[in-house]
């Protein structure tokens, strides 16, 4: 197993932990955190390929990771604002109960 493959295995496992979390939990914030984990796992791949990939001189991997972190920040802000808005209407943070679009 090369180092690159080891990196990729770790990131895949992290992705799956995030996936299991997002699927199994019903607390909205935990689901969001699971999705954040999956995003992080994807980011790890960019860096891993940049570091061990075929052409490390191209900084695309790092740049992509930076953009992806920026987007993740935006996603977290909007997601949690949504959680608060939903909570205000439904008085609950359980996903199953947030099944109406109309408050």
């Amino acid at each position, binding site marked *: 197993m090369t180092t690159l493959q080891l990196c990729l295995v770790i990131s895949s496992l992290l992705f799956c932990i995030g996936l299991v979390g997002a699927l199994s939990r019903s607390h909205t914030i935990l689901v969001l955190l699971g999705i954040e984990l999956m995003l992080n796992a994807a*980011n790890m791949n960019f860096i891993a390929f940049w570091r061990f990939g075929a052409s490390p001189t191209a900084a695309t991997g790092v740049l992509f990771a930076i953009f992806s972190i920026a987007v993740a920040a935006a996603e977290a802000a909007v997601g949690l*604002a949504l959680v608060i808005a939903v909570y205000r209407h439904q008085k609950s943070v359980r996903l199953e109960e947030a099944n109406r679009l109309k408050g």
Partner: protein
Amino acid sequence: MNLILVLIGGLMLTAAAVAMSLRNIIHSALLLIGSWLGVSFFYLWAGAEFVAFAQVLVYVGAVSMVVLFAVLLTRRDRQDVVVAPETRTRAISALLVGGSVAGLLVSAVLGTPLATGPAETPTLTVKDLGTLLAGPQAAGLLIAGVILTVALLGAVVLAATDSGKEDAS
């Protein structure tokens, strides 16, 4: 070399797995911050200094704060941060899906012959990154800026109290 990687990976994965199975959300969030720190250690190990610090700044400094705030704002009393356990069917099915995806991904990674480059760390200074971001990638930078601004505005609009309507609901 790989030992360090395995250690970092182990820390990160354990923290994430435990976080996802805990019932106390505050503990979950704090453990996840540990996991994010693990990811930034990985970046440091891989030589991507800037990304590592950006990761800490954004995830530990900003996202975690917003998460903790959201947890505190969406609870009625202290006991509320301990959530009820999920149903068994749900947990089992999620584990099955996650396990199968994991198996699929790992076997795919191990089965694919991946081209690897030179062993030494590629040098990428902050200055290089800045030149890249301001030059060839300027469009991306601008778009990211616009996305962040829009997200900020959207978040404010979503979370702001509409005091007028509140009495009706």
